[in-house]
């Protein structure tokens, strides 16, 4: 009976008794969710266009953030360093297409997936060689990202909104909006979607596979840089940033591997739900740290009913 009260009544009573705290939890969940969505988008874009699950997305985040900080350490002004880092991500995209993907055209998906593991290992070693393994400080102030906080007192309590988090959310929303516009309104965007639908058909109407792959990997590089700046501002820039890519996996399972809206809605849903569960059920009843598994359990439940994810396309295979 007591357990039923702890599960079914107390969490809601806590929410009502401290609404300012609930608002803080929801805000933190929203911030996390938007950031998860951002990481997931990098995976989705590459998968949509090439059917490759890009295992290297996490290390691309590290590589982009380290390049930005490293260039600035060498005296390059912050915004010029951003442009140069984008140049580095473009070179990386071209190199991946030329050296890794092009020779593997028509190979099974698993071979391409293994190739992205190879890219990951290469970038880990290469990044370590150039930048070292030490933790570096993200150049938040130099990029003009505000670092203060807005404080409100709803219901006589406290709601603190970090300006950096707000900037991250706004930045992510703008980036996603631009991406959606690019995919739906431009010739290149339509080509990417066409390639995602049917490689052979797209190529037969003159869409260049190699150009699209370069563009998509470059966009993934831009997303990696944005993700690196946001997450790097929270906990420094180091190889640990690679781990956050794992947080995108349940988002992809939930939203579907090839759905841009799925990545966004899945990310926000997981961010909010895992935070609410952790604070009101996980910490009081299970000792906390439920965020490490909650999203996966949620994704597994979704997979039981919709194996392609909520927004994924239903796979029909004729035998």
């Amino acid at each position, binding site marked *: 009976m007591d357990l039923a009260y702890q599960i079914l009544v107390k969490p809601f009573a806590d929410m009502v008794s*401290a609404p300012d*705290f609930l608002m*803080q*939890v929801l805000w*933190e969940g929203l*911030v*996390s969710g938007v*950031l998860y969505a951002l990481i997931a988008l990098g995976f989705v874009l590459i998968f949509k266009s090439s059917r490759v699950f890009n295992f290297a997305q996490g290390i691309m985040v590290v590589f982009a953030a380290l390049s930005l900080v490293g260039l600035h350490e060498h005296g390059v002004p912050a915004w010029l360093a951003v442009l140069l880092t984008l140049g580095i991500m473009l070179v990386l995209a071209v190199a991946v297409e030329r050296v890794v993907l092009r020779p593997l055209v028509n190979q099974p998906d698993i071979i391409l997936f293994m190739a992205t593991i190879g890219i990951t290992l290469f970038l*880990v*070693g290469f990044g*370590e060689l150039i930048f*070292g*393994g*030490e*933790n*570096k*400080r*993200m150049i938040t102030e130099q990029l003009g990202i505000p670092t203060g*906080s807005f404080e409100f007192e709803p219901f006589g309590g406290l709601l*603190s909104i*970090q300006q950096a988090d707000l900037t991250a959310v706004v930045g992510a929303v703008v980036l996603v909006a631009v991406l959606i516009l690019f995919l739906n309104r431009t010739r290149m965007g339509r080509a990417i979607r066409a390639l995602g639908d049917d490689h052979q058909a797209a190529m037969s109407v003159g869409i260049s596979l190699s150009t699209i792959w370069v563009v998509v990997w470059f966009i993934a590089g831009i997303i990696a840089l944005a993700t690196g700046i946001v*997450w790097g501002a*929270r*906990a*420094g820039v*180091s*190889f*640990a*940033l*690679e*781990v*956050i890519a*794992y*947080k995108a996996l349940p988002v992809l399972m939930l939203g579907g591997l090839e759905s841009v809206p799925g990545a966004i809605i899945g990310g926000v849903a997981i961010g909010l739900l895992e*935070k609410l569960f*952790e*604070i009101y059920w996980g*910490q009081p009843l299970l*000792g*906390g*740290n439920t*965020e*490490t598994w909650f999203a996966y359990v949620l994704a597994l439940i979704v997979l039981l009913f919709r194996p392609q994810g909520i927004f994924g396309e239903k796979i029909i295979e004729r035998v």
Partner: protein
Amino acid sequence: MNALTRKCLLPALLAMGTMLTLPALAEDSVNVTNLSYRTGPFAATGTPVMNGQRDYMLMINARDGGVNGVKIDYQECETGYNTEKGVECYEKTKGQSIVTQPWSTGITLQVLPKSNIDKVPILAPGYGFSPMADGKTFQWAFNPPTSYWDGASMILQDISKGDLASLKGKKIVLLHLDAPYGKEPIPLIQAYADKYGFTFQAIPVGVKEMQNQSAQWLQIRREKPDYVLMWGWGAMNTGALTEAVKTKFPMDHFVGIWWSGSDADLKAVGEAGKGYRSISWSYPESNSKVMQDIKKYVVDAGQSMLPKDEFDYVFYQRGVVISMFTVEAMKAAQEHFNTKVVTAEQLRWGLENLKLDDAHLAEIGMTGMVPPFSTSCADHSGHAGGWMLQWDGTKFVKSSDLLKPETEMYAELSKTEAAKYAEANKPWPINEDCKM
């Protein structure tokens, strides 16, 4: 003649050359392999320590021609702080390295049961399973100069200003990495809480949540603890410091263990981290003789992997101190066994007979870098104590005199845990010759 040369003389010469050179090489060097991690999510905190360890060994080779003429063949096996890879590294190197340095409590716990069979000493300075200090039970494991339980004891003494009874009614939170390392102080702090009447709560941080600890800090905001202690590593430290700043938690009430006191982690928050404290069994003394020798023979000679500006860092110089333990144990073993090239078994004796008093630390140019201590067959830690370091916005400074752990508080607990371990892993040999 040509055929004769090819078939007989050349192989004979090669064989003679091998016979002449191999023993000479073997006699002149010992292999010391570190199970290091310069990659992966914990590289940021692992790398500076590894740099310090490596540079001390290189300096000993360059300045002294090795330890009494025996060169140290310093190697690293990359684990990425991954327990499975760490065990692989241990298995690969146990035949050649005279000591294993697992560099993770998880790896230490995995290789601990093997140590009695493989007869390779485990050197886990300031980490690992705290009851490893009981040398009667853990004959092959060493955690000098002080254990995690010592660290917890010193932190509690410091925050209570020496009066533990004053903690009654207070609330203390332990924010810890959800790994064997992070969980290590829990039984002891709980024992202190039971004895002195404060509320204790452990809040775990998963590896995937290190950079996003908003949930943990929301919990801290809700619980309103008087103090937050941290057993963090890698990106968890910076993540926690960033959240503490965000939550406006008073920094001087936030205290970390020695692995949560890295300059690089604090530089990520800079001035906002001012007041944060970390207990430490080492202190950087850049003008000490040993550090100046490292500068001269290794850093200025272009042999170091150290990034510029990190020479003064706590973690780098702690790595130097750690390698000193191995070198001093080698020297002790050389003298005791009247030999030059020590074996793993002989090094075990050396680690058990470290005598690092003030005079000896002065002699090796390390005054003030580590508290004086000694080990024995019964005490594999030394319980040297440590200093509280405080972040002043740009660097760590000493904020206390030398603190000593209250070992009598957990002597029984240590004995019980050691006995439990031995029972769970029986047959487990106990050194009955060793008198406590």
